[in-house]
């Protein structure tokens, strides 16, 4: 192969890898600034100039070498958001390894394949711990032992329904609505028929496992860093999720006539 074609292949492969990394970061729940820093860090270590646009779910990347002889230009859409902090910290490690150990593009791709194959927590562990988190919320907001039990059951069932809805490929906001409705239906039943032993706090905190924490916090960190367009899009997403939660609560309130 001629030196030109080697250089040409390298810039194409690097570009594809960078877009893959960026898309993974965006869907794993990284803020815009973090995605930009990571991509720039990697491409700088290969000695290319990088310019890119980051949208909520799309990346547009242009790479060029220092003499402006070779170009790469492409666009990638990331998969729907599913927060995964194991992937986030893995990619952060990987980016520093690339800078310090001068990994080749093939090595980077191998490492990425390993990172994306890492397992999630077992489903029952997630259900139980998120249930406990829900009852902790209830306690922090002034609930008592029976309220906490009601919230635990409600959260467990709500998260289960939400996961099943996601598996059946319902619309994201519908999944959240189903989860909120199930959880508030159970907690609301406990409050309605609890003969005064369970309180309003149980009903209000039963849906808190659905709060869009990562979108909302990313909204404000993007806002602080000046990525206003992304901040607005993410904030809107968080708002619609909150609205879906509210709708689920209201349906239960309508059923129980609170």
């Amino acid at each position, binding site marked *: 192969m001629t030196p030109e074609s080697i250089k040409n292949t390298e810039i194409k492969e690097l570009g594809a890898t960078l877009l893959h990394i960026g898309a993974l970061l965006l869907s794993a729940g990284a803020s815009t600034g973090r995605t930009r820093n990571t991509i720039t860090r990697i491409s700088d270590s290969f000695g290319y100039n990088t310019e890119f646009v980051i949208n909520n779910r799309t990346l547009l990347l242009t790479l060029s070498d220092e003499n402006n002889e070779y170009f790469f230009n492409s666009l990638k859409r990331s998969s729907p958001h599913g927060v995964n902090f194991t992937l986030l910290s893995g990619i952060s490690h990987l980016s520093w390894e690339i800078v310090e150990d001068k990994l080749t593009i093939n090595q980077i791709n191998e490492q990425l394949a390993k990172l994306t194959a890492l397992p999630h927590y077992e489903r029952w562990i997630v259900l139980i*711990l998120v249930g406990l988190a829900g009852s902790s919320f209830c306690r922090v907001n002034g609930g008592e032992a029976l309220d906490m039990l009601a919230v635990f059951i409600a959260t467990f069932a709500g998260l289960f329904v939400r996961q099943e809805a996601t598996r059946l490929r319902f619309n994201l906001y519908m999944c959240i609505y189903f989860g909120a409705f199930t959880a508030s239906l159970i907690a609301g039943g406990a409050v309605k028929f609890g003969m005064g032993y369970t309180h309003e706090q149980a009903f209000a905190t039963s849906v808190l496992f659905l709060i869009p924490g990562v979108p909302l916090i990313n909204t404000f960190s993007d806002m602080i860093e000046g990525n206003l367009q992304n901040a607005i899009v993410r904030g809107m997403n968080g708002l619609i999720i909150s609205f879906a939660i509210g709708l689920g609560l209201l349906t239960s309130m309508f059923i129980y006539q609170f």
Partner: protein
Amino acid sequence: MEWLLLLEKCIWFGLAATGFAVLFNVPVKNLPTIYLMGAAGGFTKVLTMHFGTNIVFGSLYGATVVGFLSIYFAHKRHSPPPVLAIPSVIPMIPGILAYRMIIGLTKLAGEIQPETYNQVLAETVNYGLKVMFILMCLAGGVAIPMLITRKESAKDLKFRRRN
């Protein structure tokens, strides 16, 4: 007795943070750290509010403590700070206030009774603004260590005296 209640809340703040960490698929080795950070942030918030601080500033102080701890533990545990900080501040999200805001909004959208309308409107706006400001303070507080040191990455940031 009050102090015991405050300390007891730490347990629950930490547990809530850990639950969300598992939901966000944080690596297992970071879970004890997140429990500790969630408890510390929650304790700061409850303590400052016990001494009469507004809930907004209480959340800001709590989030700031979490922010500084996240930089410290990021070096110790070799993890990016947001991975530790985001699950730790989530228990401070004001769920009850948001719930009351939503209820207020639906009351405003429903049948209007002129006698109570102004009161409901005032309460709803109050809760809504509190929720917004608290969220802003949580994100801002977590970012404070990076903002005041003007660094782009926590890797460059070490709380150590220069030689």
